[in-house]
């Protein structure tokens, strides 16, 4: 009996640092946020329990719209990243002279500190001094300056473009690694059988990188859904809310307007969505792993 008890205590002692870390960094804030979401906590000294009032309130307001916008923004950003990343990986995987150089050239968006890259894009989108508007005017494509971040529609796409620019290198490198793990023999065998370049891509490369594509899409989905800095630095969710995603809305409510209770309710909603994505991710990864074993 004693020895079993000692063993249990010893095991707990070994686990303690990790448990304390998880309780301190993850569990306590999560529970506190859920708790907060059922209160009217604000700048006042005291707060009361208000039940589901915060949730009712956010769904009565424009939160549905924000959720839809977040999904649309994420969908386009992830899709474009995957398409561009796949295309880039195919090009970098091709046996062309100087491909080592091209591989290095894909890295800057990833290596430049994010905030600096975003500020750079901010200037590029500027109507008066920005490169994009300037070039379009020079080539006679537009008549006057266009301030890309000043209109809802263009600002929405401008933030997506910047997010894609930052996210593409990781996708490219990940897919390139997946492509390079395909044995060369397979391509030689296909070439001996008369399969052309596109046929080989369609029947060998693409099916064989699907596990990597799915994994990367889900990882990218999780990261993009929560993308804060790009939108905040470029537009602060504006103009008139056209780039306000769930994370921006939560920040504005909780930190900008000091409505901690309502903000917490929004944060819980984000947490639920992200948990679902993570669940999907672990399911897929699990399936891929068992598939490989078979």
């Amino acid at each position, binding site marked *: 009996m004693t020895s079993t008890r000692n063993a249990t205590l010893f095991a707990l002692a070994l686990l303690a640092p990790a448990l304390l870390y998880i309780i301190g960094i993850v569990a306590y804030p999560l529970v506190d946020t859920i708790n907060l979401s059922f209160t009217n906590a604000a700048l006042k000294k005291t707060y009361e329990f208000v039940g589901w009032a915060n949730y009712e309130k956010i769904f009565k307001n424009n939160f549905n719209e924000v959720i839809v916008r977040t999904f649309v923004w994420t969908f386009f950003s992830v899709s474009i990243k995957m398409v561009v990343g796949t295309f880039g990986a195919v090009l970098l995987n091709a046996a062309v002279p100087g491909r080592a150089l091209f591989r290095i050239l894909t890295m800057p968006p990833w290596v430049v500190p994010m905030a600096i890259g975003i500020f750079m894009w901010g200037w590029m989108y500027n109507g008066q001094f920005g490169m994009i508007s300037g070039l379009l005017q020079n080539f006679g494509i537009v008549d006057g300056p266009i301030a890309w971040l000043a209109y809802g529609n263009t600002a929405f796409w401008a933030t997506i473009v910047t997010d894609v620019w930052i996210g593409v290198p990781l996708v490219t490198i990940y897919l390139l690694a997946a492509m390079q793990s395909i*044995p060369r*023999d*397979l391509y*030689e*065998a*296909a*070439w*001996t*059988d*008369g*399969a052309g370049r596109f*046929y080989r891509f369609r*029947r*060998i490369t693409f*099916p*064989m990188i699907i596990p990597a594509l799915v994994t990367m899409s889900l990882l990218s989905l999780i990261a993009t859904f929560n993308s804060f800095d790009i939108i905040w630095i470029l537009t602060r969710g504006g103009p008139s809310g056209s780039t306000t995603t769930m994370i921006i809305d939560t920040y504005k409510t909780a930190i900008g307007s000091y409505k901690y209770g309502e903000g917490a309710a929004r944060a819980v909603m984000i947490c639920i969505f992200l948990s679902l994505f993570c669940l999907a991710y672990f399911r897929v990864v699990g399936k891929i792993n068992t598939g490989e074993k*078979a």
Partner: protein
Amino acid sequence: MSQLSLKHLEKSFGDTQIIKGIDLEVSQGEFVVFVGPSGCGKSTLLRMIAGLEDITSGDIVIGDKVVNDLPPVKRGIAMVFQSYALYPHMTVFENIAFPLRVERLPNDQVKERVGRAAKVLQLDARLEQRPGTLSGGQRQRVAIGRAIVRQPQIFLFDEPLSNLDAALRSEMRIELMELHKKLGSTMIYVTHDQVEAMTMADKIVVMNAGLIEQIGSPLELYHKPDNKFVASFIGSPKMNFIQGNATTSDGTNVTIDLGALGTIALPRATKRVAGDTVTLGIRPEHLVLGKSDFTLTVTPKIVEHLGIHTVLYADLPGGETFIALFEGDPKIEEGAPLEIGFKLSSAHLFDTAGLAVY
């Protein structure tokens, strides 16, 4: 009529010449094996025939067409790779059907041809499985199936059995030979294993350092090797070599002084080796216990009893390892000197350059 001709074929990677001028004729229906040590260029030569490597100079003629610049698919060849190169995400059926899908053959024809190949290779029951669920031998058969459905003029095999264990290898060897009989097609087979070469080939091409050392039937190579390299490469255990000096070479006999082992006179109608350093070659299986035409005394260092054979290892006065192989299980003790001998007719003689003297 020869179906494949290689005409002074050369291949260089940068400044390094890998294939140094190969001439070869292969007839319709022949089973030809390229054999040689690793790095001798045998796989490169096969890949050049397949069209997977460009040739630096020379000509490859298949049928009556020079195919130097044709892509693999237009050469009438099919290749089986060492790694099998199966597509892991496709079923066995789709793997075998791959070349036919590339050709865009109608579905019923694809089914018919894959079915026929699967029957020949006993894969009918596995068509819906993925390669990952198959054994090594079955995977090998799928790879062969993919080659068969193309109905090529020439099959190319690149060390196809080297990933299999010993038991499976001899099983597959027999299957391949049966397949060759059944299909009657020309097959070119690369291996570094001389047993595979000896058992399967109609014609063996022994390669070394980018050149052909000798072309011939297995028994020609065994009994009449052109040079020391072929003599040592073909046969297991390897031929024994003893260096000596040719004291006389009078057109009837060559007398060789073997130092501490004595003097031997081999019947050879040559006068050209008098005064040269020569090498005497004798295969381990041609040695007998006791006295013979030539007898030497050795002290066994190690004796291996294999039941069917007994193998004896000893050091000669010159320091060379000497191997003898006797049938059955004669009484031989390690460390106890004994007399062994051989017939003069089974001895080989090589000149200073290593060329055989007959």
